[in-house]
């Protein structure tokens, strides 16, 4: 049943993806990492890493619009659960995002950087975490805001998040310089933790609640229904 549903939904869901923001964010990201090679500008490795990060942010901004659905009010009251609809969109994004990211790293390699190669693995974890935060944030906006368009809120939220991660005191900072002694730890715990938290957030906020107050309502809310219903 679910399988047939997923198969039937693949093509139309693909068409409902927000192509304009995804394409704009992706193109800008590629243009940014391509700029040093085109101009040409020589960037020290620390700065080149930052540039790749900005490109990742650009892609994450596009992903903030992933869950936007202009027909959301209609599709919000159908038997296909929101979790399945969100999962489908996210699953369709994944191969696109992966391909785009490989392209970003490949283009960044062309930059006339003075120094060693880029830390590909660590940067990939950062990009994945940022994108996951972006999509999770969109799911949260839909869950708590109730509208059908989350991107215009989730996008700036991701920028604010990134700015905070770069500006907080060094002890809590996730955007550390590539020669920072805590680099490995920050990625192993900080970024991976953020990625895990974002995935959990995305999952939790993609569930549509059946009662209004989940904390007391999981039990109490149901009881309210039962009590009133027996009148």
């Amino acid at each position: 049943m679910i399988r047939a549903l997923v198969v039937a939904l693949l093509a139309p869901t693909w068409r409902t993806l927000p192509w304009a923001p995804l394409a704009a964010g992706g193109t800008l990201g590629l243009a940014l990492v391509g700029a040093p090679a085109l101009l040409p500008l020589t960037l020290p490795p620390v700065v080149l890493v930052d540039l790749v990060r900005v490109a990742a942010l650009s892609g994450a901004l596009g992903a903030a619009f992933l869950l936007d659905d202009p027909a959301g009010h209609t599709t919000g009251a159908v038997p296909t659960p929101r979790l399945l609809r969100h999962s489908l969109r996210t699953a369709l994004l994944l191969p696109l995002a992966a391909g785009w990211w490989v392209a970003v790293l490949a283009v960044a390699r062309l930059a006339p950087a003075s120094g060693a190669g880029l830390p590909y693995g660590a940067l990939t974890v950062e990009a994945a975490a940022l994108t996951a935060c972006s999509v999770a944030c969109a799911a949260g906006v839909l869950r708590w805001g109730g509208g059908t368009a989350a991107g215009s809120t989730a996008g700036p939220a991701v920028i604010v998040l990134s700015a905070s991660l770069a500006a907080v005191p060094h002890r809590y900072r996730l955007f550390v310089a590539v020669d920072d002694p805590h680099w490995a730890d920050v990625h192993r715990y900080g970024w991976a933790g953020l990625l895990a938290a974002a995935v959990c957030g995305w999952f939790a906020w993609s569930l549509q609640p059946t009662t209004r107050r989940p904390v007391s309502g999981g039990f109490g809310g149901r009881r309210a229904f039962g009590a009133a219903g027996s009148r």
Partner: protein
Amino acid sequence: MTAPPASRTAPPTVSVSGLTLRYRGTVALDDVSFRLGEGVTGLLGPNGAGKTTLLRILATATPPDRGALTVLGNDPSTVAGRQAVRRTLGYLPQSPGFHPGFTAFEFVDYVAILKELTDRRQRHQEVRRRLDDVGLADARGKRIKALSGGMRQRVALAAALVGDPSFVVLDEPTVGLDPEQRMRFRELIAEAGQGRTVLLSTHQTEDVAMLCHRVVVLDRGRIRFDGTPAELTAAAEGRVWSSDAKAQGALAGWRTGTGEFRNLGDPPGGAAILEPTLEDGYLMAIDGAAEGAMA
């Protein structure tokens, strides 16, 4: 004009009791209870009365703070129950959005898939049938961005009706339509009411007068009236009169096309009493509420 009286004795398909919802400090719904049976029921009320909130709860798009709702015996306060409700539900939201790049057929087909119609052949048949029903047979292949407002509204109705739901919730479907389109829409809704439970939210008393066997008036989150349109009209019996000048003490009064004033309220002795309309009854119902609220 109205549904067969037999349906009123049939068991209710939808029952609502004690629905309450607060939204940012204001009470959007306050202890709302009623039952719906087969046929078209009208939900009347001024802007901000809580109609859309009530309809969103009935369509399981929003859970209530308190209260019970059952649709065909299913309770949407559990995941399985909500799933069961949604399988029998058709919903036309107040501002249905569209994917503008889709054709009318593709959009209704997409909604049909989301309604778990996974057999491609049967689904396409069903989609075609619904589009034919709403008079869009010729516009099936047109992109939604090329359709007029009235046609888009019909696409939304087709999307609500696809899958043959037994409970249909329509939130102001006739807003923004010209009189001819509205007439056509009324026919469609009346047809949809055959063998289904339809709840129609509207500002237009004519919609109710022409379509509904039953009417619920909602104002400031509370039910002010629940009965037949005739009963609502009768509530204004003896409380509409004409005069040469605007009457003092009337709840409402306006100059009609003939130059005489039509007044609503407690008529003075010897006033020329007029035959009330459904609208008079509606105004009495919500004005009565205003008095009650002030008292």
